[in-house]
């Protein structure tokens, strides 16, 4: 449906920008030898891709602003990370960061009383999306260049504008609908969420999911206090991309945000209290029971590595061979050759501040779940213990190397790297480091990563589906089995 919407929007206004060239006169069909071998094609080298031109400004109040020039852009994008996010939710009030995000996203409502927000916003047609992430609230807006000043004033106004009671009520309704939606459909993403919960549990691990109870405990003072912390200028990272004059935009940022003062620090301290905790899960089995589900999602999971790990490039190549992409071993075997699954492969999700998740997963019929688990385990075992061919390694490495240009193909990707590097204190040239590491990677390093990371004994087993239909007891798991009913009743209509 979203694609249809995109298409409909694409059609609007498409014509006036189009410059048509005359249709050429083409010769008749040309006989072409049909034995052209793809391997014999030769390719010119790509030009070196220059690092993107951006400026970084730190305002006197601590606010950081990146400006990225995008010569071919027709709109201006503004991004902001407000440090805090889901992990900063007070205990018992889980979901507060999401509620604040929903309030901010509603900022184009004309019943906002804040002066900076009154009127005009709608006329620009600008979009504003706000989402709460683990460590920050992420704001993204786009606008035509002429309205950038207006957009920045709106964003600035979000910090202090009045939050009307009905706005908080509406945001809580949206958050409750989001909780309810988790019970609408189970899919692979549902299992991935649960895997993240397993691997990052503990007091400082993954944010705890909001519940109807925790949302009902949230009141206006909570939202105001959370907002004050989120908008502490020293904890705000701003980024602007577009076809803009950087000095002009820098002045505009200074004028708009330079007067903010920060009296509440939101920066988390360092030390043990902020470290993520990865519990020992190897050998355990986690069953997420969803009665009546006609599909089963099964596999194995463990913690992965941080982006700055020296093994990152090697593990990326190993992951590519085993389970990432349509030509991977798992997709070829489980999907193409056996027809067991529509979705089958690895889920390799390293992270900036913790080790992230490495999983091998497949969706299949409940009656095939046990067989699929056996096949996946055997594939992991042979991958980690037996030789991986030079050809496989060369192909996977080439695939990742040849994708490097796409790291620079969209300003969103570039900006996301800058924002996250700033948030987690990483160097800004992460892509270049990755490219360099890939280029000098040896086959033995890839094999070592496969042995080190894909040994099935180091994984836990994860199952999402109807436990009875899957026949979980008959699968003969040893070790600890943790079972949880995932499906839950919706709130009564009268709930507020």
């Amino acid at each position: 449906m979203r694609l249809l919407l995109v298409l409909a929007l694409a059609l609007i206004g498409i014509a006036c920008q189009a410059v048509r060239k005359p249709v050429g006169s083409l010769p008749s069909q040309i006989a072409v030898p049909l034995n052209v071998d793809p391997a014999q094609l030769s390719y010119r080298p790509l030009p070196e891709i220059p690092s993107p031109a951006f400026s970084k400004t730190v305002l006197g109040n601590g606010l950081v602003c990146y400006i990225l020039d995008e010569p071919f852009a027709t709109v201006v994008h503004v991004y902001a990370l407000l440090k805090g996010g889901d992990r900063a939710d007070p205990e018992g009030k889980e979901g507060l960061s999401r509620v604040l995000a929903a309030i901010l996203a509603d900022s184009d409502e004309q019943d906002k009383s804040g002066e900076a927000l009154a009127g005009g916003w709608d006329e620009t047609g600008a979009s504003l999306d706000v989402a709460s992430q683990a460590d920050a609230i992420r704001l993204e807006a786009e606008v035509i260049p002429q309205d950038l000043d207006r957009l920045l004033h709106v964003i600035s106004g979000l910090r202090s504008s009045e939050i009307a009671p009905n706005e908080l009520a509406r945001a809580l309704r949206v958050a409750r609908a989001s909780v309810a939606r988790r019970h609408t459909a189970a899919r692979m993403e549902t299992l991935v969420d649960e895997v993240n919960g397993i691997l990052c549990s503990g007091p400082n691990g993954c944010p705890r999911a909001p519940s109807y109870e925790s949302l009902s405990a949230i009141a206006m003072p909570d939202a105001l206090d959370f907002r004050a912390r989120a908008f502490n200028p020293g904890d705000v990272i701003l980024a602007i991309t577009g076809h803009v004059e950087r000095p002009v935009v820098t002045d505009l940022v200074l004028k708009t945000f330079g007067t903010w003062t920060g009296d509440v620090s939101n920066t988390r301290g360092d030390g043990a209290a902020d470290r993520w905790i990865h519990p020992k899960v190897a050998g355990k089995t986690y069953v997420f029971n969803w009665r009546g589900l006609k599909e089963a999602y099964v596999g194995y999971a463990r913690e992965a590595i941080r982006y700055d790990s020296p093994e990152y490039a090697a593990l990326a190549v190993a992951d590519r061979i085993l389970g990432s992409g349509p030509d991977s071993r798992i997709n070829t075997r489980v999907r193409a050759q056996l027809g067991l699954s529509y979705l089958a492969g690895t889920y390799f999700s390293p992270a900036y501040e913790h080790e992230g998740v490495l999983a091998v997963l497949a969706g299949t019929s409940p009656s095939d779940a046990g067989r699929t688990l056996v096949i996946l385990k055997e594939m992991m075992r042979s991958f980690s213990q037996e030789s991986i061919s030079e050809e496989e390694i060369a192909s996977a490495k080439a695939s990742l190397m040849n994708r490097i240009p796409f790291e620079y193909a969209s300003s969103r990707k570039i900006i996301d790297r800058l924002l996250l590097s700033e948030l987690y204190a990483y160097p800004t040239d992460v892509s270049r480091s990755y490219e360099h590491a890939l280029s000098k990677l040896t086959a033995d390093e890839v094999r070592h990563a496969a042995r080190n990371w894909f040994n099935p004994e180091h994984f836990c087993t994860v199952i999402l589906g109807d436990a009875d239909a899957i026949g979980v007891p008959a699968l003969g798991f040893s070790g600890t089995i943790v079972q949880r009913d995932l499906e839950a009743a919706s709130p009564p209509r009268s709930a507020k």
Partner: protein
Amino acid sequence: MAPWSRISTAIEAEAPATAEDATEFTLDNGMRFLVIRRGGAPVVSFATCARVGYADDPGGKSGLAHLLEHLAFKGTSRIGTKDWNTELKALDRADAIRRQLRLTDAPDSASELKRELDAAEDVAGKLASSSDFSRLLETAGAVRLTARTNADETVYSVDLPSNRVELWFLLESERFRDPVFREFYKEKNVVAEERKMRVDTNSRGRLMEDLLHVSFSTHPYGSPGIGTPGDLSSLTRDDARAFFQAYYVPSNLTAVLVGDADPDLIRAFAIKYFGRLPAGKPPTRRHVVEAEHETERSVILLRNGPCVVVMGYHKSALAQDQKAAYDVLCSILAQGRTSRLHRKLAVEQSLITSVQYAGSVPGGRDPGLLLLTFTLSDSAAPENVISAVKRELQTTAMSLAGEAELGAARNRARLAWASLRGSNSATAYAYAVWEAQSGSYGDLLGYSDGLERVTSTQVRNVAASMFGSDKPEIAIIDRPTATPNDGGKK
């Protein structure tokens, strides 16, 4: 004047290059190409659009267009095999046995034939290397290697570094010149799993399938795109071959390339690789007009989770100038948080948490539905939302939009378009689909002007034609607690 009123356009470095550097050409065999050249990173997005979708599935063979899309990744007689001659013999033998099996009643004979079938398929399976097609592209650095079957068209997409353009031409032309449909019966199992994921275990997927079924009782838009389990199980390799030959002719294909693409080079490659495809006979779609529905029809699913109401209004065939008015109408009604339906139902009445719209479901070649989807607040009842929506739509059908409302709708549309052009792949896909549905990139000329000329009266007239009869198709996801559970569907 507000302090942020437009201070200057000096923010903009210089007038951005808003004009598209577009080149169109058509090969002698009828295949069309559109090249949009852009600067930036050395990458190109490719979209090949076949003007055939699941609305073209033959009767009793639902899911065929979609299954064929899957099979298009399985290679050719030269790509994806270890020994084509032997593999072909095994595939043909397996097909012949399957034909015999369909005619055989005797259990003993059937049992023997099944053993022979297993043996033939085992030989074919061992000689197949069906990932080769994808591997060649992936090794070249492909991202977003995918395809999508819609009601009216099937689009094959991939992004590649710009120095791999010739590889795309070679593989894409081979794919449509010489598909062999290997692993056909394994892939049917894959699609059956996909159906479980998208429809059987997904409330909204199930709801949409049921809604379209009741909305289009005669037009093929009511057919399930992914196929019914019964139809899927009966499809044969012969069906796929016949369907391919009927619809995958060059005059039914359009390729759109967006990015760091030299039009002269593209033209040369197009002639070299696609020029060898024989022209074939252009296919036609049977013209079916959905009979007017005399009563309101509804589908209800009982599921946990938030309540959802979907209301579909049948569109009539719109003239070119009405299309712009229709798009403006949709924007006024349901695009964004200041749209009429959001303000009325979410802000004023607290009945919903969100409203979304889709302008033409499931397709655009023939009149489809305007679909309005509402996620309900946990205290709201579906019947109250439906009544409120009908009231608001009637008001819209009777009243004129103000100039500010019209202007905002135009701005949203302009921004959306500009935003879309920020992505090569999205542009390639959108242009390819437009070509499939309208027949010409050139038809877009004048559309934007039409948008600028849209008047309140035109918007109201379109609204009156849409909502005057007040007989929407309705689909609801409601909670089991509201009604005794009768198995989840009534």
